[in-house]
């Protein structure tokens, strides 16, 4: 059930904070504020125009309050939903609901992390779970490794096919001036890298970087009056499958199989209408699972689908043109940056890596250990 209307709101401002490695003592709030300032400059709105705050970060438990204090804002509406890396796709859905209902008019969604500077362990401390912690899984990597191992067992997916995802991401990253990784990568290099949790090597795992971002949404009517071409929210879908990997009902089917159809139904379009995908690539197995679960290839075919450079530059489907969490930036909860690339592709702002005639993009967020899945479909005014 959804009362959300296709195209009722649009993204009008989008910006990254500084990425990669920031100066000592930088706080996640500094990065949120910097990205917010840049997103305001992007659309021409003032800080005082924002009346809704949506934020989440593992380093600041009560982040909407902390950000409101930092920027001395008095938001009419705020939402600190935190469901891992997909939190920000969820915020888009919630912001759309709030704007439609008149609870706020200009919604800010923002994120910041200094996990590279302070260490991943300090940025995202793990909760003790009697039914998992004694076995010492290296989380989240081991959870994704268990899903990958099962996918390999059931469908014949290979480590080489997993590596193709990392290689494609690296090729895109080499066309993104702000990407962390600057050197080419081969399948063989991925396979021979340090093993983290079999079958995943360190090159099958996302980066550990600092980073943040901000996007600003408002009603479609107001969006038309602002600086940039509006990027409309055509569809959203949220789903939670489980929390811990021991309780994932089926290791090879994620709740993207629920969030995707919800988003497509709302948008009234189908996978073949999508020009570019931004899929949360925490690990090389995740784009494979999401391509299947979102309907871009049959279940079990994901490994073969990504092979032969099919999702790399010049391939048949443009996936993760920023270079993704694997090669561009992965600051802990990466979902906001997943959306920013999909927004910029609709705007035509991606320079060398711009997808031609890009009118519809899909941004898919993943949180926890394949646990929360949220899908957003963006479109240009030509799609309305």
């Amino acid at each position, binding site marked *: 059930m959804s009362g959300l209307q296709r195209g009722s709101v649009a993204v009008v401002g989008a910006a990254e904070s500084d990425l990669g490695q920031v100066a000592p003592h930088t706080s996640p709030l500094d990065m949120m504020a910097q990205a917010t300032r840049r997103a305001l400059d992007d659309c021409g709105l003032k800080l005082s125009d924002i009346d809704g705050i949506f934020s989440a970060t593992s380093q600041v438990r009560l982040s909407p309050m902390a950000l409101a204090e930092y920027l001395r804002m008095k938001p009419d509406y705020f939402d600190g939903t935190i469901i891992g890396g997909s939190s920000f796709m969820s915020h888009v859905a919630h912001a759309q609901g709030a704007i439609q209902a008149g609870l706020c008019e200009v919604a800010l969604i923002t994120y910041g992390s200094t996990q590279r500077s302070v260490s991943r362990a300090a940025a995202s401390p793990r909760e003790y779970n*009697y039914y998992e912690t*004694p*076995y010492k899984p290296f989380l989240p990597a*081991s959870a994704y490794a268990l899903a990958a191992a099962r996918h390999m*067992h059931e469908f014949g997916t290979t480590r080489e096919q997993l590596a193709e995802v990392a290689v494609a991401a690296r090729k895109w990253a080499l066309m993104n001036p702000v990407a962390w990784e600057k050197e080419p990568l081969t399948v063989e290099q991925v396979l021979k890298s340090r093993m*983290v*949790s079999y079958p995943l090597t360190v090159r099958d795992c996302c980066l550990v970087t600092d980073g943040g971002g901000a996007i600003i949404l408002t009603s479609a009517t107001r969006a038309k009056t602002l600086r940039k071409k509006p990027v409309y929210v055509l569809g959203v879908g949220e789903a939670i499958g489980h929390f811990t*990997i*021991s309780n994932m009902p089926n290791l090879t089917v994620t709740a993207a199989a629920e969030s995707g159809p919800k988003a497509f139904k709302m948008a009234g379009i189908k996978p073949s209408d999508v020009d570019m995908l931004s899929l949360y690539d925490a690990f090389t197995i995740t784009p494979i699972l999401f391509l299947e679960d979102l309907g871009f290839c049959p279940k079990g075919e994901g490994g073969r689908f990504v092979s032969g450079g099919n999702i790399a530059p010049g391939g048949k489907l443009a996936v993760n043109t920023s270079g993704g969490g694997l090669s561009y930036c992965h600051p802990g909860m990466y979902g906001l940056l997943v959306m920013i690339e999909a927004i910029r592709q609709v705007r035509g702002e991606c320079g060398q890596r711009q997808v031609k005639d890009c009118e519809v993009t899909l941004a898919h967020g993943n949180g926890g250990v394949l646990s929360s899945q949220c899908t957003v479909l963006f479109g240009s005014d030509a799609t309305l």
Partner: protein
Amino acid sequence: MQSLKEQSPLGVFIEHCKKGELAYQICTDDNTPLFFPRVVVPKTGSTNLEWRVSKGLGTVHSTTVVHAAKDKPPHNVALIDVDEGFRMMSRVEDIDPMQVKIGMRVKVRINPGDDKQPPFPVFVPVGGVK
């Protein structure tokens, strides 16, 4: 419904571990097994729960080998489908972790734990695959 002032689901589970047992619950409405132990049955919301002791046999559903630190040997982490119809995380011991395979038959063994860690179930191979 049991009082949480008297006992907790995990507390009961640990007491069984101390006796060398792998315990789980069933919902007596329809005999559905559930794990991890809870005070309310998932989906139905029923509180008709009873404890059972597993025969301790299961099958490896998935497996990984964790390379945690340079000075420590890699170790196994596995998901086990226990024969009574529930899945749990554990590890398979007494075998090279890379030789733990999906489909391998295993049997429970209770690790005694230590001062900080209460006893917890691990598994060992019993030969055969499923």
